[in-house]
């Protein structure tokens, strides 16, 4: 077998990686629209995000199937096998991130047509969303560049999101006794929680970067044993 053998297979694997990670661009765009819909209580835009999630799901199904075919036909080992394993995980993360955008967009109509009950909480959620979009693009870049340090840094970035989420919770507790305002705050908490989960998925992608590079899978942070 000459040097550079299996080029077709290598090219196919590279194309599938690009396609899978391209799913993160779709998610980032979906989250951008979601934030806009939250900010302006734009129900139509929210509906577009919900409908558009089919593209993310479609990407998941298409790339997933192609990766399974590579497993069945090419007997990948070593780095190729780790990459395929990681991409299968990442695809699932991307699909979940898309679903979280849908979850947020589905609750927007519940927040009513009145102006936001608490502008500070809206701004917190928008800040969370922006920060999470940063996480998404950083996760993609860390994967493309196989940069474990950049992947690990996602934990630090995600802490910012987590803190904002807790801040939202505190604001919701203090929103007062008015039933409508409380309902609005509960709805916004669901949105904040969904964004926070998107950030967690970005960190999970970072863990897969470390797996591809080192061959060891370790959670960057163990939620059930914090500080360990």
């Amino acid at each position, binding site marked *: 077998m000459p*040097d*550079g053998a299996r080029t077709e297979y290598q090219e196919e694997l590279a194309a599938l990686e690009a396609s899978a990670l391209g799913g993160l661009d779709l998610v980032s765009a979906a989250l951008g629209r979601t934030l806009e819909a939250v900010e302006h209580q734009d129900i139509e835009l929210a509906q577009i995000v919900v409908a558009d999630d089919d593209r993310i799901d479609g990407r998941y199904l298409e790339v997933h199937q192609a990766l399974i075919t590579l497993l069945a036909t090419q007997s990948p*080992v*070593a*780095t190729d096998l780790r990459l395929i394993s990681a991409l299968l995980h990442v695809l699932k993360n991307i699909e979940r991130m898309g679903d979280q955008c849908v979850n947020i967009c589905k609750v927007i109509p519940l927040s009513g047509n009145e102006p936001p009950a608490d502008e500070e909480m809206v701004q917190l959620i928008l800040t969370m969303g922006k920060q999470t979009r940063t996480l998404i693009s950083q996760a993609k870049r860390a994967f493309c560049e196989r940069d474990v340090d950049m992947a690990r840094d996602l934990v630090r970035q995600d802490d910012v999101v987590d803190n904002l989420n807790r801040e939202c919770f505190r604001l919701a507790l203090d929103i007062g006794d008015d039933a409508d305002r409380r309902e609005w705050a509960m709805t916004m908490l669901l949105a904040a929680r969904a964004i926070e989960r998107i950030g967690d998925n970005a960190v999970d992608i970072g863990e897969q970067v470390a797996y591809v590079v080192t061959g060891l899978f370790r959670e960057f942070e163990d939620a059930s044993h914090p500080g360990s």
Partner: protein
Amino acid sequence: MFGAKSETAETPEQTAGSKPLGETATAGSTPSPVSAIGRGAKTIDVSDANLYYGDFHAVEDVTMKIEPNKVTALIGSSGCGKTTFLRSLNRMHELTPGGTVKGEIRLDGEDIYGRGIDPVEVRRLIGMVFQAPNPFPTMSIYDNVAAGLNLNAGRMKKPDKDAIVERSLRGAHLWEEVKDRLDKPGSGLSGGQQQRLCIARAIAVEPEVLLMDEPCSALDPVATLAIEDLIGELKNRFTIAIVTHNMQQAARASDITAFFNLEKSGTPGRLIEIGPTEKIFMKPDEKATEDYVSGRFG
């Protein structure tokens, strides 16, 4: 270990109670090969082995251990010296004109190239199964298995020999297929059966180590998987080293994988990396290993 006649006589302890050959065993009547033998496999320790064909330096500075009760796969592209290395482990390399060995190869501490060591006895203790099934074509199935016994143990009583032939054929997963035609020529068997016959012949003389040189390369996938299953079972009794060009076979059938490579044609082959098979196929340390197991060269 190698010299004394008394040690080489493989008088089977299973003789008592053994049945005439050909009689169908009832369930539970035949001791399993493992419990019947009950002795440990042995370690081969290789240090600084350098192998030559005349002036040509074929294998350079190999230091590795082949562990008991494990299957060690030797992989690498053609010409990397893995078969030469395998053949040095039971002193078959020196049978090739100009074939010489420098360095030490020890079987449980004893230098197999030491002074006064009988190479024939080394080859009995360290058996070899070859690439193409090579039963003696005119011999019966029975005589094929018994061939090594006749050479090694001198005169042996028929019932003792029967017992060993049956035990060896059972050990090679061939007994049920041939028990009613033991007097027929071995060459009448299928390729996969012939290879199992050769394995039966190799284990009949109770070796400590089995070396296999691409034992499945001439076999179809079903026969290949049957041999791999057999290898998995035989490792409970023997130390096994197997040369294979089939990467998936190394991945499936071995516990330890050793990758040999040469920089370019005409240079000696070297051991690049050895480790648990899982590691070699998931995260090898060396780029050359990664490229080879991934099929990027070779």
